């Protein structure tokens, strides 16, 4: 086929299947501004910033124009600059302009564009809405005075997560984003995944910030602050503090945490190794009895919440294993129970829903949670910056004993398909290195939202599905319920790409998420222990601390509609 071109600012640009003119313009190296365009969401076309002028003087939104050969557009004419400035001015006139104290300051798209377009004056009266913040959720904070109604959160919640906790209410200049019946977020059907905050271009939805409490704990001589770091954090934090290459910087994280004053530093992947063993046992038992199948994984708290809200009938199919964070939290509290100091367990997570998970009654003993605080990657970034420590120059250090280094299986928990791969490594009869290599290409790896694989198991074949994004999970559930599909094991992660794409991480596109995934697989490749059951720490735990307490510390029963996030 002959190559087709369209002209962008008089330069021919080849059309290679781009869905819209905006993508082509960006390919041509022009950073056309938008608030409401994300390639993973439907085209909404509301911000009107991506307008381009055609050769007849017509103005079109490039996000919703299909590229055609011979089309000629201009991206930077005097008219377009005038319109863009006016649109920004109109948004700012209706916006809280307390930039310096805003959670999003520095990463706010509106702030950035106002700066880029040199908006120095707003000629209209400031009519920002006087609405209280919604701080009811453990995971996110909503501030409607900063909302520009781009609808990104609404589409994310509906299209990717199939939750629909928020939507537009009212009309015209009265339009707002709201929940059903104007309930606060905590009482809504929000699952806490935080993806709305991830795509929010301004400070209208942000992740709840708990850094102040951590600083306080670190300054308390009576407190022993123990921290665990989730797998996905180590391949994302550097994007904000150093390189954007998705490499594992766990050593630097350990070093920086130690310098900040954390007393004991561990790896949540150790908890993940426990999960592999427990979940595999459970899976094998269910297979043997052929009951409560398919088995759904239970690592993702947003998925648990979703199932509680929409599919309470499926709760019995969800693994009774606690998430790695909660397993490890319980182990840590048990381990330090005789400490003469007040033990505070902090978890650094790529996730906002973990904040709500830590606050669930199921994970408290006499009112005290196993995990006292959950910090997101972004909050840790902020703390590092606040401490003045230059992350890039940290010399890598190792985590503390007695929980030491995890297996590679525990590390890949951070990426979609990782849990599944770890479980397969455990159940597969073939324990050779070749089997491991083949497994990597059996369809469990990659950023696709739905993946399927089957592996031989004794006489039978196990059918396994891996989904990320709750809307993808919903499709699968419907297919299972209708009898169209049959699976034995299903891994569900709420965030597209798994935990590496969690809302607590710095914002990343699909490509960047893939780099993070590669970073974790590389770590796995380099670890001498590939299988959870070969991790000596885990073996000693079963022989020691966990003896007779496996069920109490590592399992949980979700009783239906739990607390709201």
């Amino acid at each position, binding site marked *: 086929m002959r190559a087709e071109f369209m002209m962008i600012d008089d330069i021919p640009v080849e059309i290679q299947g781009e869905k819209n003119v905006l993508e082509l313009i960006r390919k041509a190296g022009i950073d056309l501004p938008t608030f409401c365009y994300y390639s993973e969401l439907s*085209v*909404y*076309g*509301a*911000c*009107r910033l991506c*307008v381009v002028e055609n050769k007849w003087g017509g*103005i079109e*939104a490039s*996000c*919703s124009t*299909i590229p055609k050969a011979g089309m000629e557009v201009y991206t930077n004419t005097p*008219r377009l600059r*005038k*319109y863009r400035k*006016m*649109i920004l001015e*109109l*948004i700012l*006139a*209706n916006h809280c302009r307390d930039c310096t104290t805003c959670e999003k300051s520095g990463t706010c798209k509106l702030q950035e564009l106002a700066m880029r377009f040199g908006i120095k004056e707003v*000629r*209209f*009266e400031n*009519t920002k809405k006087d609405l209280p913040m919604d701080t009811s959720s453990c995971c996110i904070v909503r501030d409607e005075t900063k909302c*520009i*109604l781009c*609808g990104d959160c609404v589409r994310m919640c509906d299209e990717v997560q199939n939750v629909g906790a928020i*939507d*537009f209410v*009212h*009309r*015209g*200049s*009265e*339009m707002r984003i709201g929940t059903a019946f104007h309930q606060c977020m905590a009482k809504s059907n929000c699952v806490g995944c935080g993806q709305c905050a991830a795509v929010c271009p301004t400070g209208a939805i942000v992740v709840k910030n708990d850094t102040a409490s951590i600083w306080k704990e670190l300054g308390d001589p009576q407190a022993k602050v123990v921290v665990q770091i989730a797998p996905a954090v180590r391949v994302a934090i550097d994007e904000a503090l150093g390189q954007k290459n998705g490499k594992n910087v766990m050593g630097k994280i350990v070093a920086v945490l130690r310098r900040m004053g954390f007393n004991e530093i561990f790896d949540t992947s150790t908890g993940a190794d426990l999960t592999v063993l427990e979940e595999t046992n459970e899976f094998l038992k269910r297979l043997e009895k052929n009951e409560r199948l398919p088995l759904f994984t239970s690592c993702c708290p947003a998925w648990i919440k979703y199932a509680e809200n929409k599919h309470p009938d499926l709760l019995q199919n969800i693994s009774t294993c606690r998430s790695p964070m909660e397993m490890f939290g319980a182990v840590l509290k048990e381990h330090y129970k005789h400490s003469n100091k007040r033990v505070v367990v902090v978890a650094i997570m790529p996730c906002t829903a973990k904040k709500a998970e830590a606050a669930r009654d199921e994970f408290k003993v006499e009112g005290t949670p196993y995990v006292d605080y959950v910090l997101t990657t972004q909050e840790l970034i902020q703390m590092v910056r606040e401490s003045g420590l230059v992350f890039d120059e940290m010399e890598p250090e190792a985590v503390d004993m007695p929980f030491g280094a995890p297996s590679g299986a525990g590390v890949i928990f951070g990426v979609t398909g990782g849990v599944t791969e770890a479980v397969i490594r455990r159940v597969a009869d073939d324990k050779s290195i070749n089997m491991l290599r083949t497994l990597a290409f059996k369809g469990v790896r990659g950023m696709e939202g739905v993946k399927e694989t089957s592996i031989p198991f004794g006489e039978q074949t196990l059918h396994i599905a891996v989904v990320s994004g709750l809307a993808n999970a919903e499709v699968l559930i419907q297919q299972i319920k209708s009898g169209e599909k049959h699976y034995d094991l299903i891994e569900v992660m709420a965030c597209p790409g798994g935990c590496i794409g969690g809302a607590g991480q710095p914002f990343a596109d699909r490509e960047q998420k893939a780099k993070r995934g590669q970073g974790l697989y590389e770590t796995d490749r380099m670890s001498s222990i590939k299988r959870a059951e070969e991790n000596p720490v885990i073996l000693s735990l079963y022989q020691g601390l966990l003896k007779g307490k496996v069920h109490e510390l590592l399992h949980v029963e979700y009783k239906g509609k739990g607390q709201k996030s």
Partner: protein
Amino acid sequence: MLKMRSDLVNLREIYQKATQMQKVKILICSGTGCIAGGAKEIHQEFLRRMEAQGVNCFVTLEKEPHDKSVGLKQSGCHGFCEMGPLVRIEPWGFLYIKVKPEDCQEIIDKTILKGECIERLAYHKDGKVYQTQEEIPFYKKQTRLVLEHCGHIDATSLEEYLSVGGYKALEKALFDMEEEAIIKEIELSNLRGRGGGGFPAGRKWSQVRRQKEPVKYIVCNGDEGDPGAFMDRSIMEGDPHRMLEGMMIAARACGAQEGYIYVRAEYPLAIERLCKAIAQAHAYGLLGKNILGTGFDFDIHINRGAGAFVCGEGSALTASIEGKRGMPRVKPPRTVEQGLFEKPTVLNNVETFANVPLVILNGAQWYKNIGPENSPGTKAFALTGNIENTGLIEVPMGTSLREVIFDIGGGMRGGAGFKAVQIGGPSGGCLTTKDLDLPLDFDALKKAGAMIGSGGLVVMDENTCMVEVARFFMNFTQNESCGKCVPCREGTKRMLEILERMVEGKGEPEDIEKLLELADTISSTALCGLGKTAAFPVVSTIKNFKEEYEAHILEKRCPAKNCQKLKQITIDPALCKGCSKCSRLCPVDAIHGKVKEPFVIDPNKCIKCGSCISACAFKAIKED
């Protein structure tokens, strides 16, 4: 149940005969306006009195009515709403205006029984009495084709529709024409969409027909929302079957199986009559499965809109039917490709569908002879504002504004001078004296910076303040903006803010520039038609009446003496005798003075109610 063509033909003949035998008919206008004026009471009164008097009277069309019987019918809108409630009496064609229940007895005695015209109830102007409807200037200059049955048949009866040749076009389309030929005919006729856009209906239909997807929809846009427009309402209320027939023909031509009519819930009568009409069509087998034995299946549903103006926009309308928020979406895909439920959809407005049977029955050539070549056919307009004859009219496209406003509309009410006419509702522009000879058609108006829109004509006399007009329409669009795109949501709000300031005397010199800058941004960048046209009234009033804007801003004066906040009421000390009457009457205690000396009004307290002006015996108090 009509099972085949001959069934329909036979039934039509029966009712045609029946209606011809029934010589005397009382047609009581039962449009929304006349019902509000008491048309239902008049109907009851006629019925009661004729029964008491032993007059053989039928309220429905029977297959064999007694040939001396009197038909008492609730018809659709006669159009002359200013003069309602209206009663037309056939065979003489008398039109009685402003009829009250008390007049019924006299009408029965003199007109029904003796055939005399009661002149006091007839329309009269300038000393001349117009006995028959056809003589009245308001009707004389009209060409009523789409509205031909409105006011002439019972609007709630399929039988009456049959008796005047109803469903003949459907019959022709089903039995005598290939599906492509139907579309060809509509294309040839150059019937253009009456909703405002003027897009050729035939082209739309053929685009839908071409789609590979087997499931297709026909959607009728009855979400008429322009202030002062009621053409579509009158068609739905007055001749619902004609519209259904148009939809059925469209469905046949395009291969659609289902249709939806989207009507505003504020049109309860239209909804009631449409529901009834659909039920009747079902009962006769004109809707449903295997219509007239042709294998053609079609059904029509009614969807009531919640009153959002923006739901008149195609993609917002289909979203609303689907149960989603009524918000326009980006195009492509277009409605003809993926409209309702993401299926190919023909979306036309009420008047367009009502034109279809005419085209099919009489042929494209006949249709093209009406009006100019590029905009053939007729157009219904709703005349409102400071005009003598408000009401619903229908004229050939290309008729001049002058004919519409002065010959049919009777000129300005109270003899005031003509100033402007707002055409096309809040999306249109205003036309002035220099535009009076413009032909009313899609292209000529577009050139003049206005649009024909759905057909609302708001006529304004010299006492109208054009800044206030612009504020009124901006207030409307601002309220009706869906809120999706930034320029429309935020831009209209700012334009309204500026206009509100102006009419309160707080305008600033740079405001006109700011308005035009906002207007340019909104028109160029807004997502949908509502936004793109939202600023038109402002731009066209600035273009034509810039001096009025300047007077408001620079002199804090309203030349039309219309803006309440800019009024100044003063007492002429030379004329004031100091009687203190005004001071005692003033509700806000703004007038003070010593008795027998001139009084003074405190402008800061005065609320410009004007009660002092009317009270002053010496005409000493003036407003300017």
